[in-house]
């Protein structure tokens, strides 16, 4: 049974309709007969399914339609075409700090956010202390939210979303929250949540992160689905190659090809690095005098014997 099923989803934005131009221009243009709407497809024919426990990484350059797709999955938007089916409650971390109210206190904001994510008052009562402790905001509970630093705000948002045990978690470039200590803590917490059988979607520009956390990957480019695959290694490498050469793969074989090319490139870069280091070493040896060369020789021999 799939938890998330996205079937041939396309999302269209309208440009130049009355939202853009206001009522006056709308009427004038309507009368003149040059009223025109241009379409913009943020996503076109995107399809994939996720089983329970899957972690999907969505990759793509800016403007690829990643966030729009997430909005569709979290139910904020309806797809123009196609269908999205999601089972269970969704905790969406789309831009962490939004939706908080600067005038309210941390305490009030925590409850408000919990309510927005669909939890009951009893549940929030029981979780509140844990959330505040995890966010390390014990001393700030009665402060207006606007007085917090932006790192603290994100910490609170992250803590709420992670500690409430969602069925589906959606993370939009949010895994690098807070300072060093909290980053490590949140990373561990994230892994713990994910290993608990939650189904997740992660948008990230860090391929290393995608390789570490995800078992499936979706590559979008300008709204088009390049591929959906469980070969995370190959796709992320192909994507890295694409970022350098700007050449899109046209088939699955192409992706493997690109991934190999990327391997070669990475190997070459490493080789060059190694060579540079060797050269440095040689130069160093050349500058040594006879006595120190002798002692170096003895050291190496001693080491070899060991």
């Amino acid at each position: 049974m799939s938890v998330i099923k996205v079937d041939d989803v396309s999302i269209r934005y309208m440009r130049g309709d009355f939202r853009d131009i206001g009522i006056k221009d709308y009427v004038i243009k309507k009368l003149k007969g040059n009223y025109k709407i241009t379409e913009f497809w943020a996503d076109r024919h995107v399809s994939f399914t996720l089983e329970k426990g899957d972690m999907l990484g969505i990759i793509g350059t800016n403007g690829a339609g990643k966030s729009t797709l997430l909005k569709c999955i979290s139910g904020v938007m309806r797809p123009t075409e196609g269908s999205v089916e999601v089972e269970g409650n969704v905790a969406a971390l789309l831009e962490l700090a939004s939706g908080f109210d600067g005038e309210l206190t941390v305490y009030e904001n925590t409850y408000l956010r919990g309510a927005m994510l669909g939890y009951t008052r009893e549940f929030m009562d029981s979780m509140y202390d844990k959330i505040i402790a995890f966010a390390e905001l014990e001393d700030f509970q009665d402060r207006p939210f606007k007085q917090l630093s932006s790192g603290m705000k994100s910490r609170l948002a992250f803590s709420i979303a992670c500690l409430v045990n969602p069925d589906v978690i959606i993370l939009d470039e949010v895994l690098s929250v807070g300072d060093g200590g909290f980053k490590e803590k949140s990373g561990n917490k994230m892994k713990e949540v994910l290993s608990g059988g939650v189904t997740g979607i992660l948008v990230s520009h860090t391929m290393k992160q995608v390789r570490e956390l995800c078992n499936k990957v979706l590559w979008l480019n300008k709204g088009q689905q390049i591929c959906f695959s469980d070969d995370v290694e190959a796709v992320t490498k192909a994507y890295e190659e694409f970022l350098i050469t700007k050449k899109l793969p046209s088939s699955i074989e192409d992706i493997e090809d690109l991934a190999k090319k990327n391997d070669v490139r990475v190997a070459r870069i490493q080789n060059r690095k190694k060579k540079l280091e060797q050269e440095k070493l040689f130069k160093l040896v050349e500058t040594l005098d006879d006595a120190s060369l002798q002692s170096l020789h003895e050291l190496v021999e001693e080491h070899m014997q060991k």
Partner: protein
Amino acid sequence: MFNSFKQHMFLFEELTKRDFKKKYKRSVLGMGWSILSPLLQLLVLSLVFKHFFGRNMEHYTIYLFCGNLLYGYFKEATKGGMNSLVMNKAIITKINVPKYIFLLSKNISSLINFLINIGVFFVFCLVDGICFKWSFTLLIIPVVCLVIFNIGVGMILSAFYCVFKDVSYLYDIFTMLLMYMSAIFYTVDILPLNLQNCFYLNPVFCFIKYFRVIVVDGMIPSLGLHALCIGYAALLLILGCITYKKMGHKFVYYL
């Protein structure tokens, strides 16, 4: 719809609390303003108009208070309702929650204000020598109708406000017109009869009229007036629901 509302009860409570708290956050008097501001309005109105319209009329201040009370609530609730979607766009575009929740919570916080003012109104009645009668309990009918009416108007306005920002300015003008058409500070008796009947086309006038018949005239309103109040409320609520049903999922594109 009822089920989803039950599910979102907690959110509804939190939003109402937020709206109410934010309203008086920076003022010194806080909630005192919700009592003081209509009283000051009343003072100004009665200073200006008492000598024009209230000379040969008993309980003119109460007459004025009725109109100002209901009109004030109508204006506040519908304007708040109009802004409710745009003000919460940061939430609506990020998290999937039913949009009418924002409108309802805003309406509730103006309703609380209104109820406080009704309390003040009754105190004024006593001072002016109008004793409490059992017929006063009937006032619950126009109050409930007005609440529903305001929600309906708020739904329609907030939907259009998402799309046309101009609605806000047009509505300001419209409410001003409505104020003069609601016979707040004058009586309609001076006008010819067929013109008097035109006033019943204005829902706000009907609600005000209902209040006046009971409080000032001490009578029970006719069945026709009941029908008008209930009819207007039902009509606007239905129109509002249709608007939301039709446009609900499109709001995100416009916010």
